[in-house]
């Protein structure tokens, strides 16, 4: 679990913030390039950021923020939607997930929210 890409970027962002710098190796570039795409940062924006250590650090922090905030937003929405659904409020449950979908940009989180929306509609 600890070796996966998203976790690595989050750890990278933490250590960069702590140290005030990011060592921009080829491996780090590849990791950031890969994960940036997965959280909907455009390739152009990512390549621009990966030219310098300081901007790459900002990119790592932004990618980490999207992962963290999206995860919390999604888990709250899913749990709250299931509670509403269990109490008979299907419309309210679906609305919660629709509100999340209106603001979430990370494709994985959007896919999970859509699956949950479908699940609650059954």
């Amino acid at each position, binding site marked *: *679990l600890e070796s*996966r*890409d*998203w*976790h690595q970027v*989050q750890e990278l*962002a*933490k250590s960069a*913030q*702590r140290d005030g710098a990011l060592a921009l190796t080829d491996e780090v570039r590849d990791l950031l390039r890969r994960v940036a795409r997965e959280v909907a940062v455009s390739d152009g924006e990512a390549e621009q950021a990966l030219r310098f250590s300081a901007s790459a650090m900002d990119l790592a922090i932004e990618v*980490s923020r999207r*992962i*963290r905030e999206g*995860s*919390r937003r*999604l*888990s*709250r929405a*899913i*749990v709250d939607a*299931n*509670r509403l*659904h*269990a*109490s*008979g409020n299907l419309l309210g449950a679906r609305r919660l997930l629709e509100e999340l979908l209106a603001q979430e940009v990370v494709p*994985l*989180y959007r*896919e*999970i929210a859509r*699956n949950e929306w479908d*699940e609650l509609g059954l």
Partner: protein
Amino acid sequence: MSAWLRFVGGYWRLLLVVLLPGCISTNANSQQLMYLAQAGVECSPNDSTVSCCIKQHPGDPERCGATAPPKPEVEDTVRAAEAASEPAKGKEADPDDGYRDHCIDMYVLCQQRKWSGNCHDCLRYRQGQKQWPFDVCGKR
């Protein structure tokens, strides 16, 4: 069986409320657990769910109609709780209100939705990092 019971997963939720200190604090003792279980009650006046009953009476689950889980599952969950990592520290740590219930609810959903990945591992990650690793446990 009601929809709510299906959601909370019956005894899984009870088991985690009682045995999962990492969802509250990795250093919490049993007295703190009991206190927090009671202090954390968020039941509406008409809430007659098993979940609410368990939170109000954490030391008496049978009063709520809950049954004890099989021993191997208890042992698994205890091991998971013992292996829980320390909470994340540093600039990225920020408030995570209600995370005790979230730990439990997300674990139960992970099991019930049959998400890919190991729900126990994802629960431990959730405890340490205060975020659910949807890239590991989220898709089917």
